[in-house]
């Protein structure tokens, strides 16, 4: 039972997809103009993530290894289309606010990342818990950023006036505000010391993530090439072991959790 809870909290804080793993930055930056949008986007992604983890975990022994990525993409794209149509039908306001970022859940690194790193080697129930944890972590990060941007930009949170009428630094609602707020949240998390192995991996940018991403197969040259090229720049900070394949790190984390 404990390991199911561990999955949940893992996604929320220790491996928060946005703030620690830096996955799914595009929708996070784009829709966090208001706290309510953050929740809408977060929950849509959570739904797709839980279902895709479930389906992929159930089918993990059926899908041949060579064609797994195209298969995952088709599964995820179908689920996203279903979600999109449901939101369009029942929550037209949210659909208007999120716009193109709903279909773009397909290319959200979190979804294929979890499929590749977790769901295809674990039981359906564990995968669902992982999906819920990651989805909640994503939702929490988006809502937090949305609330900060909304508060600074218009003095409101969830549409309720908190700061005096007329207060508002519009820049925080506009695109630059997204970069600023996320930069500061991540800096604060760094300062209070939430650092994990994954974090160090990811500090080299997308390199760590992309091998988790859709084109993992063709990506395999990437970390090696990067280690060679980028090694000179930041060799000091990283030990070779931490530069290892993200999957290895994932397995290690799993092993630790099981103990």
């Amino acid at each position, binding site marked *: 039972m404990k390991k199911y809870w561990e999955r949940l909290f893992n996604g929320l804080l220790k491996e928060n997809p946005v703030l620690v793993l*830096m*996955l799914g*930055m*595009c*929708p996070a*930056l*784009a829709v966090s103009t208001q706290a309510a949008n953050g929740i809408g986007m977060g929950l849509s992604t959570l739904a797709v993530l839980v279902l895709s983890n479930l389906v992929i975990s159930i089918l993990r022994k059926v899908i041949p290894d060579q064609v797994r990525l*195209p298969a995952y*993409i*088709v599964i995820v*794209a*179908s689920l*996203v*289309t279903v979600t*999109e*149509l449901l939101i369009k039908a029942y929550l037209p306001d949210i659909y208007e606010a999120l716009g*193109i970022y709903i*279909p*773009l859940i*397909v*290319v*959200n*690194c979190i979804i*294929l990342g979890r499929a590749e790193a977790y769901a295809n080697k674990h039981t359906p129930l564990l995968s669902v818990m992982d999906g819920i944890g990651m989805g909640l972590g994503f939702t929490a990060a988006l809502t937090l950023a949305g609330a900060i941007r909304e508060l600074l930009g218009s003095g409101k949170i969830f549409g309720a006036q908190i700061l005096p009428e007329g207060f508002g630094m519009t*820049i925080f609602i*506009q*695109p*630059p*505000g*997204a*970069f*600023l707020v*996320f*930069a*500061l949240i*991540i*800096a*604060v998390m*760094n*300062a209070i010391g939430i650092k994990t192995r994954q974090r160090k991996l*990811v*500090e*080299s*940018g*997308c*390199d760590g*993530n*992309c091998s988790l*991403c*859709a*084109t993992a197969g*063709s*990506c395999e*040259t*990437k970390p090696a*090439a990067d280690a060679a*090229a*980028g090694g000179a*720049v930041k060799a000091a900070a990283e030990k070779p072991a931490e530069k290892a394949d993200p999957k290895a790190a994932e397995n290690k984390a799993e092993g630790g959790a099981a103990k």
Partner: protein
Amino acid sequence: MKSLIMIIIGSALISNVVLNQFLGICSFLGVSKQMKASISLGAAVIFVITIASAVASLLYDNVLKPLGMDFMKTIIFILVIAALVQIVEMFLKKKSPAVYQALGIYLPLITTNCAVLGVALNNVKDGFNFIESVASGFGTALGYTIAIVLLAGIRSRINEKDLPAPLRGAPIVMIAAALMSIAFMGFGGLNI
């Protein structure tokens, strides 16, 4: 003709794909560490997005719309883009190894770049025809290249500075991106 130029300038500068619409952030933050890699990735993105928006536009106007399968566009587009990247890669490998070498590993990475799917979906949403879609795809990719090359230049300067520890890595890059984004907001005043 004038409207095409407007579309290109609009999608490259005014609503820049990275700094204004937040598409392709992953590679924007990841690859901009090195100037050379940024230029290669930019070239690959221009290449793929222009072709992808052309194919997606043809497919949507001639197949999906007549059949009333509008809702299938996400699935179809992502499959087309994935297949297209593979084909482009194989074609380049065979026909022009020099270009292939230059683009190298960045070509397959583009499948997961949400800018490609984003442009295809945006073109449909804006009701662009074939020529307009190609122009918008090219403009968007050009904007992506401008942004990533600029950020790579800024980062090469940041690397030499002694920063407070919590800001090292991602945060300072995003602050730089925020300042670039503010600068690009200036293009909003362009009256074309």
